[in-house]
């Protein structure tokens, strides 16, 4: 219990530190949200109007007063409202975050669906043509930047063959087929790196398991090769794959920025970029805090799982 309390407390302190750093960093770089909003499109706003908007948004208050207001709101669970359109930051995140998580989940499913069978087959036929070809393909997938692959797919499948839409978003409840169609390309692109990782990890794990005694015993008992692979090889090889998958899912959050932009997928990245460009302080802090919180939560869960599995971790 003490371990659990300690880990949660350190996560809260870390979240607070992240929020403070982001808040201060944003206010220290040049840029005035009021002036930027009224300068949209490159026009020159009336400075009196800019001053009025600054006052209305509370940006004329001293920094420490703004910071205290921000902290007070945070303690109440209030992330504030956008400086651009007065929209609730929490509501924006609640709207956008599920879309980003959906993208990551879809990418992960693709990675597992392709990487595990392909990795297993490559390991069973190690050194064969499939193994060598797939190793090359996976290296290529790792090397190609997401925006290059995304752009090429749009060019080929949308512009040239007209098989797929160029990008965008339709809510699932409005049109499930169109929703999945629009999800498929960005999910494929964001999952491509993970496919390679899962493939390599599966291949290595299966190669490690295959010569073990229990596998030989299973074969000696006369079990079919397919069942040996499923029940005694892949199942045991899956542990390390899941660990690596968990670690990389966090980094996928960062990878969504480019993918969401290229495919016009309205996840959390678009408002984050727009908010940074427009110095929309509450929106930036709210989103960064949410993403950081997710990272911390994942780390906390992993740590707690380790602790549950290994008493030596609990003992410190």
């Amino acid at each position: 219990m003490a371990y659990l309390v300690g880990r949660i407390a350190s996560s809260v302190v870390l979240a607070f530190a992240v929020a403070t750093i982001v808040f201060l960093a944003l206010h220290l770089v040049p840029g005035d949200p009021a002036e930027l909003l009224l300068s949209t499109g490159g026009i020159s706003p009336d400075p009196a109007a800019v001053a009025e908007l600054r006052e209305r948004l509370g940006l004329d208050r001293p920094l420490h007063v703004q910071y205290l207001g921000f902290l007070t709101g945070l303690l109440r669970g209030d992330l504030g409202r956008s400086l651009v359109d007065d929209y609730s930051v929490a509501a924006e995140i609640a709207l956008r975050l599920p879309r980003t998580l959906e993208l990551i989940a879809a990418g992960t499913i693709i990675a597992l669906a392709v990487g595990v069978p392909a990795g297993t087959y490559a390991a069973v036929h190690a050194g064969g043509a499939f193994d060598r070809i797939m190793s090359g393909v996976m290296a290529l997938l790792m090397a190609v930047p997401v925006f290059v692959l995304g752009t090429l797919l749009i060019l080929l499948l949308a512009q040239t063959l007209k098989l797929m839409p160029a990008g965008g978003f339709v809510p699932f409840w409005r049109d499930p087929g169109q929703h999945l169609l629009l999800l498929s390309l960005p999910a494929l692109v964001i999952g491509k790196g993970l496919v390679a990782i899962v493939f390599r990890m599966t291949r290595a794990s299966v190669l490690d398991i295959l010569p073990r005694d229990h596998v030989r015993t299973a074969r000696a008992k006369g079990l079919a090769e397919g069942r040996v692979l499923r029940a005694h090889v892949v199942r045991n090889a899956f542990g390390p794959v899941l660990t690596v998958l968990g670690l990389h899912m966090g980094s996928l959050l960062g990878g969504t920025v480019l993918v969401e932009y290229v495919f016009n997928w309205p996840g959390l990245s678009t408002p984050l970029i727009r908010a940074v460009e427009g110095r929309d302080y509450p929106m930036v802090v709210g989103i960064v805090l949410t993403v950081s919180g997710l990272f911390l939560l994942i780390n906390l869960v992993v740590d707690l799982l380790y602790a549950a599995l290994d008493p030596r971790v609990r003992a410190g």
Partner: protein
Amino acid sequence: MTNLTRRGLVKSGLGLLAACGLTSGVEAQRAKLLRFGLSAWPPNLQPWVSTGASAGTVKMLIHSRLIGYDRAGNLAGELAESFGHEADGAWVFRLVPNAVFHNGEPVTSADVRHTIEQIGGERSTAYMRAQFQSVSRIETPDARTIRIHTKEPVATLPTWFGNYNMPIVWRGSPANEPVGCGAYRLESQERGTSLDLVAFDRYFRAGLPRIERLRLVVYADENLRFAALKSGDMDMIEYVPWQSMSGVESDPRLRLDTQYGPFMDILFNGTKGPFADARIRRAVAHAVKREDIVQAAFFGRGRPLEGVPIVEGTPWWDAELSKGWRYDPAEAKRLLAAAGAPNGFQTVMLGTAQFGMHKDTAEVVQQHLAAIGIQCELRLPDWSTRVRLGTTGQYEIAIHGVSADNNDPDGLTVIMDTSLSPTHGRSFGVQAPRTIDLLARGRAEFDETKRVAIYKDMQRAALEEVPLVGLAWRAQGYGMDRRVTGFTNIPGALSTSSGFMLTETTIA
């Protein structure tokens, strides 16, 4: 009827995978729907606050202005059926009799008065705030007549009402829910993604709008916006990227409509450093070969701008004056020598790397200035920093891109009148007294012939005082399916206001 297409088959398959038999009803309504690709999500739809051209397009569709423009860019009444200037100095506007707001209330002179008072109010953040604070008196003798008096004579007052940040709003509107009287109502929106507009059945202009529904979908990435047009996802897009214009032209299914309106220019800090000297600024003006900018930054989709940015084809344009800053490195060197800097000097050029056209333009200008001895170190921060540094005068020379308010030379005041409060889009503290005086005289002159003469003098003064240096007009393009008809890209600076033409647009 839904056409059987490859994409349809893929979509159907995924729909089945989703174990859901629902299908979109949208395609069945294609004949009544236009899908339009916006370049940016409107930051907000506050009627009088400027939040960019994309927001302006939406505002012009859900609201109406007192004055609009015809296809040629001439002022034309929108809510005003007539307007004119009277002997006592008042501008008088007569409202159409049949306009109603979306809540059914009639549009009256009291609503116009309310709009003007809100815009010109002390606590206003409206784009046209400064202009309307020069209104001294508003009279509404009856429900359809508005008489506006200004502190000084203003010949260009109707153009104020033509700005897309000038919708007339119902006077009883709640603070954050302005009620308009535009051709469309905002039916729904998918925040950050799309807006759905539906025709207002009591719109006052007979037979309009010609499309039942508009779906405005945001494609911030210009390449994806173009791809959406090419693939048929969109019927029409704004801001066709320059590199993709040939792709639209070469597609027999598509049509491109471009105008030269926005332009790139050089701004100066006149309070310190070498550019306080007008001769140095003129040297810069003669040193840059504009054609290189047109090719490098705009893929050939622009025009050299070697004078004050007056739109060609307007009465104020003059062939000779438009070449007043022609490329002439020898003259540039002569001016540098005359200013006491025969070997040039070193400076820092401000721009932004956030927009490719700004960065590319800055790089070309840097090369040409180096050729006459002015060595520029480029400072290309993000746009936010660029704006702040510009407004506070923390630069010596800067690259900018902008559009005038309209095609009247008075629309250049906001860009060229350096006596106004500092902003990032005007030179900082540059002394240009003759230019500023002539801009003011042109604004106050009602005789068209005299105005033409005044503005030609203004151009001559500006060529000498150099409050800015014009570099290149850039093409502003709309791409559309050939089935889309009735849309016109309005000439010159009004190109970014062309969104209101969607009310007269239809699709076969």
